[in-house]
């Protein structure tokens, strides 16, 4: 277990481990033996290792759901629900601003400066960014575009959706936690039968 010490610490601290955030750890976690070892170790802490549907991101869940655990999960869930729209809007904004033909996925790189430059000259993007930055999930008090963008990216880094490989260089890599977010949305959509379509109809394809 000793060699997994740093990994356990990251997991216990609530980090999501994916191929982008920690390639080595992710490889270890993909092995069944390691999963068992870790679960065995985590048992007294009332934790267990879980992953999303396509095993692209690992995190810790409660083993037994006692009262305290449920309270914590309720709070967590409220935050998640609250963050859905701002996160989705951010995803859309990045896709449109950078002129990408597909949604962001784990491993994509975003250059902050490029994002700022493209937003600067476009009134409607600027407007949307302004609105997004003042959402309470990001909660920016500044009117300056540069500060707003920096804050948004910093918040996303704190929440584990982005990774900044060099703290002095303003470029970010999208982590596997974005897959988790998509899974959450898909889950809610399926469970609540929301009229939210994700299969292109023949018409959309033509």
């Amino acid at each position, binding site marked *: 277990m000793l060699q997994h010490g740093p990994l356990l610490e990251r997991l216990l*601290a609530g980090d999501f481990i994916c191929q982008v955030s920690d390639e080595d750890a992710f490889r270890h976690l993909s092995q069944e033996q390691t999963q068992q070892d870790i679960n065995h170790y985590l048992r007294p802490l009332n*934790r267990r290792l879980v992953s999303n549907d396509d095993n692209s991101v690992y995190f*810790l869940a409660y083993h037994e759901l006692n009262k305290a655990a449920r309270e914590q999960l309720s709070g967590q869930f409220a935050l998640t629900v609250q963050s859905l*729209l701002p996160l989705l809007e951010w995803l859309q904004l990045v896709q449109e601003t950078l002129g990408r033909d*597909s949604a962001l996925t784990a491993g994509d790189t975003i250059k902050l400066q490029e994002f700022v430059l493209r937003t600067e000259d476009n009134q409607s993007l600027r407007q949307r960014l302004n609105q997004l930055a003042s959402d309470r999930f990001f909660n920016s008090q500044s009117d300056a575009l540069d500060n707003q963008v920096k804050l948004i990216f910093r918040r996303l880094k704190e929440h584990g959706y982005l990774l900044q490989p060099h703290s002095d260089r303003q470029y970010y890599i999208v982590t596997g936690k974005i897959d988790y977010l998509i899974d959450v949305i898909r889950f809610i959509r399926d469970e609540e039968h929301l009229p939210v379509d994700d299969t292109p109809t023949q018409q959309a394809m033509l």
Partner: protein
Amino acid sequence: MAPLDTGAASNLFNVGAERLALLGKHHKALMQGYLDGFIDEAAFSESALKKLIAARILWRPDEQQPLALRPLVSELIASMVADENRRQINADVAEKLEQIRNRVQAYRDAQYKSDYSVAELQLQRLTEHVHDLSGQFEEAIDSLWHRLNSDFGFVASLDDKIRENERAQKQLRRLLDGLVLLDFNELIELSEGNNQLRKLLVSQLQNQLSSHHSSLLEVQKRLVELLARFRQQQSRSMLITNMAAFLRQHPKYQPADYPNRSDVPVLFNQAAAIQPQAAIALDKASERQILAELVRALPRTAAINLPDQQSASFAAVMEDEEIAARQQALKTDVENFYLRVIDKAGPLSALDYLTEQQLSWDSEIWLYQIIAEYQALPQDEKHMFAIKRDEVPASAVNSLLLIRDISLSLQAA
């Protein structure tokens, strides 16, 4: 190469060479025509246009249409520059196979008649056909890999990429169907009893085609994977757009209370963070040494005592005896300086006194202490001394005054 009459062969050579030269001569205008899809007739002289049309390089598809490159010429260019938008894949195997059969027959007939020069020519043609067949697959596979490796980057939108990928998969299926047409038993039969034929049709062609077959299967696997990824991306984009739209339309929307269900979905079972903490333990004797080093390495708060300007009696806060002693020595020296001033009639420079007495005090500290001592004097005693500062501005642009020296003199009361 004798059998065809040499006149015809040399004529063929001349016409071919001349027409190839035409391609080179007008390369820029023709390439522009490839890009535009039609030829700018103004770029050519009338005789040049006639020659190009006669050489079957240009044609007019329709009376109303401008001149354009012949499809075969476009195809040649597309293949040379690997332009995946225009590159054609020729999956027609049956025709090639028919040609190979005929050539084998002609070769055998010539051999039977002992007409060796004709037989040799036929073998030469047969070799070309076999190479063509293999080259046709090679070209197609190259084109497919090229498209795969560029992630279909030659089209812009995801929808186009999906369509291109589907087209490539259809081409690939046709190529695989074509490979099935090649029956090696038949080829073995065709080459029976002839070493050269066997070498050409069986060992060589078979080798090449089986490697093409495995390449095609690999490409197919990758194409399917890529298509799945494209579809996944497409569905993700749609999910994001539509869910965002839904949430915007229903700002009060609240999903069910998943965390309090009896069976909590794993996605919403995200445990609270635990930060492991540790403290120093002294129970292991072996670690004492390390701990002691750690303690020693702790940065100490440096005892910086800024002298109190008002009272100047900062000696009081000095705890350390050694510093206190030095402070006392400084005070004594300053007192001696004051005594000397009283003894002397005229003004006395503090720095001159310092050098004269060979005292080791830093000049700044020395001056400071003298001023402090002066300030600390009772009001009536202050009047007894005239203190004169020798000041200069810090620089030409900075009018901050720096004290260079102090001279003290006894004042007539």
